[in-house]
């Protein structure tokens, strides 16, 4: 892939980093393991140091092996701590990952401070270097190393999800049933955690450990606000990740700031848009719907109240006191009920119309209360 320009390499690296992460992210979000992913991303540091020593230098496969091992060790340690019953689950995560990261940082500072393996790079990476980090085997230049790794990870994750889609889905939504049907939820769990660890290693050199977590969780959470179907959710999250990779790149170039940081900011913007404006789940549509429902409900309540008390008419003041409503709210609800011809004003008092009387019966039926 030596034919690509630097810009194309960076863009593709971003897109594949986002895609590989988004593929596993949906399962993390649905299984409520976002913070576990965060823990894993910090914990791979000692794994990398370990493999650095083992391979006597940076080596992709040993690195992935070591980091995956560290990732799994983190999951095992957190679960072991939780099983003691002495700690709550959030405390267990909050103890394990800083410890792992601290071990990694101490090892790096003490033994490798002069080689290219520092904690800064692991924390926030630098995607702009990806065109210059070349994979050269023998005398052949195969192109950008991070890009190749991330393309590989995307394929691995895609294959894993396609092959084990049914099992993953079942274990995510009904672990008990999965176990009963003979799919070990533990195996699926650790398999997924291995994929998360490997993806983290693949992506951290480009975007850094913390932002890897963003690429996993934020697109998946965005998609989760837009659809109820798992397959569509995965697809949407990959799209959201890729779109923010592209937008992030151009945004970063425009303002001369960190590319990976800008990618995450774009993800944040996409997520905010979904959280606010998603038709089914968005906060805005929810607030509007709730206000409509509250008004609808209050108008029905008013009709039922008048019907129930069988008085010819009631003064607004008396109504406001009985229902404990503010005058403004009562006025609004009366106006609404008037528009619906359920109530009318008689000499400044509120009375149920014949139409309103009929309405009371249908309201009672729809709410499921007997008409008295």
């Amino acid at each position, binding site marked *: 892939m030596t034919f690509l320009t630097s810009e194309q390499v960076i863009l593709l690296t971003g897109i594949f980093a986002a895609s590989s992460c988004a593929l596993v992210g949906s399962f993390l979000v649905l299984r409520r393991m976002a913070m576990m992913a965060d823990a894993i991303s910090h914990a791979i540091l000692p794994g990398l140091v370990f493999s650095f020593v083992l391979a006597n230098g940076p080596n992709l496969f040993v690195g992935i092996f070591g980091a995956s091992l560290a990732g799994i060790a983190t999951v095992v340690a957190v679960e072991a701590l939780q099983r003691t019953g002495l700690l709550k689950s959030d405390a267990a995560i909050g103890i394990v990952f800083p410890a792992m990261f601290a071990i990694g940082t101490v090892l790096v500072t003490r033994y490798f401070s002069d080689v290219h393996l520092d904690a800064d790079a692991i924390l926030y990476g630098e995607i702009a270097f990806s065109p210059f980090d070349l994979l050269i085997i023998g005398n052949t230049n195969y192109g950008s190393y991070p890009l190749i790794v991330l393309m590989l990870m995307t394929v691995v994750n895609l294959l894993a999800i396609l092959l084990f889609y049914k099992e993953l889905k079942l274990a995510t939504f009904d672990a008990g049933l999965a176990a009963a049907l003979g799919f070990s939820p533990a195996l699926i769990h650790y398999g997924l955690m291995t994929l998360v660890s490997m993806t983290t290693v693949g992506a951290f050199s480009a975007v850094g450990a913390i932002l890897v977590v963003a690429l996993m969780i934020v697109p998946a959470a965005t998609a989760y606000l837009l659809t109820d179907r798992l397959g569509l959710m995965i697809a949407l999250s990959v799209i959201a990740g890729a779109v923010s990779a592209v937008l992030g790149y151009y945004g970063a170039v425009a303002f001369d700031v960190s590319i990976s940081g800008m990618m995450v900011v774009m993800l944040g913007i996409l997520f905010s848009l979904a959280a606010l404006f998603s038709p089914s789940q968005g906060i805005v549509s929810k607030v509007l719907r709730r206000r409509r429902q509250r008004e609808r409900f209050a108008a029905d*309540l008013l009709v039922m109240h008048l019907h129930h008390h069988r008085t010819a008419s009631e003064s607004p003041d008396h109504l406001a006191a009985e229902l404990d*409503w503010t005058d403004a709210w009562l006025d609004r609800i009366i106006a609404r009920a008037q528009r619906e011809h359920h109530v009318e004003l008689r000499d400044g008092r509120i009375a149920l119309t014949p139409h309103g009387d009929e309405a009371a019966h249908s309201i009672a039926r729809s709410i499921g209360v007997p008409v008295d």
Partner: protein
Amino acid sequence: MSTATTLNESPVAVRDLTVAYREEPVLWDVDLTVPEGRLVAIVGPNGAGKSTLIKSILDLVARTSGTVSVYGKSYKENRELVGYVPQRGSVDWDFPTTSLDIVQMGLYGKLGWIRRPGKKERQIAYECLEKVGMEDYADRQISQLSGGQQQRVFLARALAQDAEIYFMDEPFAGVDAATEAAIVNVMRDLREAGKTLIIVHHNLETVLEYFDWVVLLNVQIIASGPVNEAFTLENIRKTYGGRIAALNSLNGSEAESTVLMGDG
């Protein structure tokens, strides 16, 4: 008796109370007046709004409409006349503290801001533990108590509130026989002292035995009154719908009833 009772007001009066989550009514147009000095059971199927009724009286849940008064005033004004036993499952029993300490929490409202419980408060708390037969467990860490013992500690905490009216949310849920007997004793002692108790209850079999007033609730009030008047087969059937398979004689004070609950 207390100054409030001389006001000649009902301990609890609920008028036109509706509570709705979204557009679903949890409580619908509830009117309820509880006479003083009674043991009141609130019964009804799951999702009937029993806990919500208590919580809306205590201002813990927002009301969609209607008013609530405690001895003729708002809950806020007469808060000191009220004791509350929440559901046992609503707290973390691994919290690092002792039974005695939990009971002292019942005094925090009267202590007000900042002031700490002292010797006098410890003494009161200890006496409250005695009333529920838990004095030997005063210094026990609360996670080491059985479910029934935890429930008795919660009851003692409410006793420490020294209220005129007590609200209890399912105090008999999942407790042993000894605890059940202890709670019933405390309930009767409180009634002797002229207090009013409003208790969310789930076991129909013991309603006649334990209580003298019953509120049958299923979103609406189905019936409310002295047990021998309100707790009729007809009303129970109305409250529980078709979910009662068999229901034997519930007449008079004979507590000979076998209630087979459906899948509710």
